[in-house]
């Protein structure tokens, strides 16, 4: 790294310095605006009255109470937690074994299976969400929590497979071979050898799926009924019907959603690299 720097730094003229400054300025400009977008929601949620001034006239906590009642946030949060936890658990139960097989074995049709797991991540949810919702409604699962869970599994399982496959490839297969030599069956190898070794990877994959499922709007929106809405869908409806309720009340709900998402994101970032949220794509490049 240093060698590169010293070999090239001498060639850096005024143009290069101006260019570097320009690029940094653009990035700063972008981040300031994003911070502004987020901060305006937070400030508004604590505002007593905010019209025509830089900052609100005063601050209050009461919008959180009113948002809690108006939007039945207690119920919505309960449904969200239920759906998200079930999706995380099922996607790991289904995804990790599949990733194991893909990491360890070569078999006819492996490329087809890999492609099958890539497709749901490549095609945007709204494109397949409409036919999927149609099928789920025909099966009378539309509008139910089961339907929402099934829909959310479609991107979650392939995501777990794609995150876990390279992780499992790193685990030395000789450890499993040794356990097998001593007579351990496949499920015992899985439980006593692999699971402890894979725990960090499973934790990371689970947290990433958790964050992505809380924030996944389109599929839940298309499939959910009034009793099976997650937080992000409830937020959409309240923004859509803006004007019916006070802006501050909607913003209090938005902050609730933001905190729910960011807490898990912060936790996930302790275990994974930020680029891993889009890592799937790096794999596809192969």
């Amino acid at each position, binding site marked *: 790294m240093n060698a*590169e720097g010293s070999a090239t730094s001498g*060639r850096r003229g005024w143009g290069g310095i101006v260019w570097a400054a320009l690029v940094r300025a653009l990035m700063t400009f972008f981040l300031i605006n994003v911070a502004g977008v987020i901060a*305006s929601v937070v400030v508004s949620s604590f505002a007593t009255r905010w019209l025509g001034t830089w900052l609100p006239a005063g601050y209050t906590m009461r919008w959180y109470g009113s948002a809690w009642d108006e939007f039945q946030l207690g119920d919505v949060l309960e449904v969200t937690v239920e759906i998200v936890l079930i999706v995380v658990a099922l996607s790991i139960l289904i995804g990790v074994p*599949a990733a194991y097989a893909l990491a360890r074995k070569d*078999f006819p049709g492996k490329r087809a299976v890999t492609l099958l797991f890539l497709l749901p991540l490549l095609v945007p949810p709204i*494109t397949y969400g409409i036919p999927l919702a149609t099928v789920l409604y025909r099966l009378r699962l539309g509008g139910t929590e089961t339907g929402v869970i099934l829909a959310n599994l*479609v991107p979650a399982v392939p995501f777990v497979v794609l995150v876990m496959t390279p992780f499992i490839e790193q685990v030395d297969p000789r450890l499993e071979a040794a356990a097998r030599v001593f007579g351990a069956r496949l499920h015992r190898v899985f439980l006593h050898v692999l699971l402890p070794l894979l725990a960090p990877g499973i934790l990371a994959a689970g947290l990433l799926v958790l964050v992505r499922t809380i924030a996944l709007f389109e599929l839940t929106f298309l499939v959910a009924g009034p009793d099976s809405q997650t937080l992000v869908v409830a937020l959409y409806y309240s*923004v859509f019907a803006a004007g019916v309720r006070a802006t501050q009340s909607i913003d209090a709900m938005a902050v609730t959603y933001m905190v729910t998402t960011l807490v898990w994101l912060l936790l996930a970032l302790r275990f994974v690299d930020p680029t891993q949220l889009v890592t799937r794509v790096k794999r596809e*490049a192969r």
Partner: protein
Amino acid sequence: MAARELREAGLDRTVLLTVPGVLLVLLLFIYPFAYGLFLSFAPKTGGIWANYARFFGDERLYGTIAKTFWIALPATLLNLALALPMAYQLRRATRLQRAVTTALVVPITLGTVLVAEGMLNYLGPQGWLNRLLIDLHLVAAPVRLIHNYWGVLLSLVVTGFPFAFLLTLSYVTGIDPVLAQAAATLGAGRGRQFLHIYLPLLAPGLAITFCLSFVQAFSVFPSAILLGAPAGPTRVISIAAYQAAFEDYDYSMASAIAMLMGLAQLIVVVAVLGLRGVFYRGPAAGAKG
């Protein structure tokens, strides 16, 4: 079905571990797509092509394709044009790189609905941005940035740029800096190192980044409704599909629109990946670690 085939091929039982996952994708992804395609040819009234004929005969329907392109294409190009120099600048693993990537994950994670609500506040006539522009005497009256084309475009930049940046960064960091070092030893300046070493090696990654960014932008949905003018210039194709399904309860027509949406995305992806082949042939991943 898959299980029996595999057993007949005399395969290790381990391979059976993929069966639940494969079944899930087949039943909940492939089957709905096939069903939707079939359904699109079984319209409520008329012959098998009636839905498609109606789509291309009604300006409110076929016009959505051009409107969607008109939002998605500039957004994608802008995001890529911003992402490439920034990712290149931050290609070394520094604390700044870590800080920037962490900051950029936030808008992606929060998602389009929250960004839309924030932008309604921030970009609105009473928002901080307009307030600043007026106080700096750059404009006399608030600039209209929401409930029109610009609101949707900006929202696609706020969520799309971080995505394009993180992807591009993962490709840039995959290129061995020794190659640029060698070029520098031979007298290549910074500009030429980028143009002749990095850019050709990045081309395949950039093509994929373009495709994924475009496909996402083309399926813009919540922000086109919340930040745009969903009855006018930002009536994108996903809104038409949604309305057909959940307002007219015409699932057959909705499937036809969804299929056309998928087809339009596919055409662009195939075109871009084909173009990549024209401009660059060679060991694309040769320098990846």
